[in-house]
């Protein structure tokens, strides 16, 4: 697996506030990488560091072995960014945005994007501020995909979209990358839709990466266990406890298993992606002692 984005002890501080700390990652090329975490956890910071909008305070980040902030001319042709709230020029039409893209980028797949806008029935000659949220999202995505970049970075692309718009957005995205080896890095605070589209998971909370790994492997190595409280100490000594929520009657926890759970007294269930993420985030919250925003 080649790592297209690598970070080493990457950190970013705003004034006295650390938005990201000690982030070391190798993101696999060709993967669809989900970055999940509560609002304010550091998702936007990490994504903006990848595309060179932010400068690292500590550590390094490279895309294709080049530093995005220091070498923008080398990196920009290889990354595409769809920022949160998809900033577009409200007074320009979709057609004018395409012209803008063609002017400012060396590689530009104009026809493919226009075809797609046509299929989605997006009016090209209307000012972007008069388009619906879903249409704006499709325009922003189309502009990002037209660059034919190696890495497409999307910051909360599904937030504020209705379910149909969300579905269409993901369809467009998946279709576009199905024939290229494009790496996708997208952040979300809604986990449910990510399971079918993403194959690599990053959980971020409290400005730190809590988990980084292939989704299937991760789900395969985690279990939800339910059993009697008396047996808990034995189990917790053998396996990594992610988050336990016991009641007076029984022990319930999400654990990362080391080998098999042989004791028949335990009910062992697989975890869904959502349960997994919740467990990691709950662990962070209980460690820091501060109330976090609820995950949807």
């Amino acid at each position, binding site marked *: 697996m080649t790592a297209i984005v690598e970070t080493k002890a990457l950190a970013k501080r705003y004034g006295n506030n650390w938005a990201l700390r000690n982030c070391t990652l190798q993101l696999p090329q060709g993967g669809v990488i989900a970055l999940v975490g509560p609002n304010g956890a550091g998702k936007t910071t990490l994504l*903006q560091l990848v*595309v*060179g*909008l*932010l*400068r690292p305070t500590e550590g390094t980040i490279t895309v294709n072995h080049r530093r995005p*902030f220091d070498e*923008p*001319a080398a990196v*920009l*042709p290889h*990354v*595409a*960014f769809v*920022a949160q*709230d998809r*900033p*577009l*020029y*409200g007074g*320009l039409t979709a057609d*004018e945005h395409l*012209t*803008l*893209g063609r*002017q*400012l*980028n*060396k590689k530009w797949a104009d026809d493919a994007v226009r075809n797609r806008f046509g299929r989605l029935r997006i009016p090209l000659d209307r000012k972007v501020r008069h388009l619906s949220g879903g249409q704006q999202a499709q325009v*922003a995505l189309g*502009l990002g995909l037209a*660059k034919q970049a190696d890495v497409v970075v999307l910051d909360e692309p599904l937030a504020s979209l209705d379910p149909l718009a969300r579905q269409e957005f993901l369809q467009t995205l998946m279709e576009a990358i199905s024939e290229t080896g494009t790496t996708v890095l997208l952040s979300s605070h809604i986990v449910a839709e990510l399971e079918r589209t993403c194959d690599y998971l990053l959980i971020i909370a409290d400005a730190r990466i809590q988990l980084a790994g292939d989704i299937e492997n991760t789900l395969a190595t985690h279990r939800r266990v339910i059993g009697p409280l008396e047996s808990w100490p034995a189990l917790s000594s053998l396996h990594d406890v992610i988050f336990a929520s016991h009641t007076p009657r029984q022990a319930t926890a999400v654990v990362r298993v080391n080998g098999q759970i042989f004791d028949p007294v335990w009910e062992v269930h697989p975890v869904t992606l959502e349960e997994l993420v919740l467990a990691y985030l709950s662990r962070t919250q209980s460690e820091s002692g501060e109330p976090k925003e609820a995950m949807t």
Partner: protein
Amino acid sequence: MRWLLWRQHRFEMMCIALTLVLCAAFLSLEHLTLASAFADRSLGQCASSSSPSCQTSLNAFVNQFGSMNLSIYWMLILPAVLGIFIGAPLVARELESGTFRFVWVQGVTRTRWFVAKVAALAVATVVAAAALSVIISWALAPLIRVEGILLMPSLNSLTTPLFDLTGVVLIASSVFALSIGVLAGTLARTSVLAMLLTLVAFAAVAVPLDMYRPHFLQPETATAAIQGGSNSNLPAVPPGSWVLKMGFVDAQGRWYDLLSEAAGACLPIDSSAAFDRCISNLGLSTYVEYQPPDRFWHLQVAQAATYGGLSLVALMAAWWIVRRRIA
């Protein structure tokens, strides 16, 4: 980037052009009035104000049309307007609306984007300001010529507003206003705040600079003895000079505004002869401080260079902020 520059700034360019056209129209009307009056009174024949008939008609001309100097006073705010409405929003608008997160991640680097935008607007500014300068000089030429012949006119090409609106100063101050506007935009990050900052910063430089102009070069002085009990003996000052101060000096070099102060000891006047003797005992003479007209270009270049240097500093600071600090 050419398409983007035009598409995003075409409205501003058209406003500049429209302003230029309106000013030109206004000034052309003034020119018609001046030119016809000048010709009617055959003022072209007066090369100096030495002959009494010339002196009378020249003075009459200035008395009648001198207010045209002030009619262009309002044009002094044009550079500031340019800085506020075109310079300040340049970067601030992108920061405010978040579109910088779109346009700075396309294929052009921030530096190239910044340089292209600033260069385009600067060129437009220089062209427009130069055009306006020339038009003003042409339109008010008859008046300027007359003021250049008279002794000690109150307004001429060395004084505000003409000095600031002709020659190269208008170009330099306009570029400065644009530069300080762009810098304000990178600092304030919202358009409204940037505009306010631009207004304040521009005034903070332009006003003191204008006030300092009289002393940029050591002014010339001239004195003349007072005769006949009258203080109408003026020193020999070149025609068209910019008079900074007029008054009286005594033998000790003390300076007085009014004769009544200077010669207080000589009052009340017994006889004109006694008065004359008293005055010459005090060693009083009339005194004028002035800038001669041949210093026009020297002063122009000095003020323009100051604006130019500050513009460069402002633009470099703005570029540095865009490249390194908005991160």
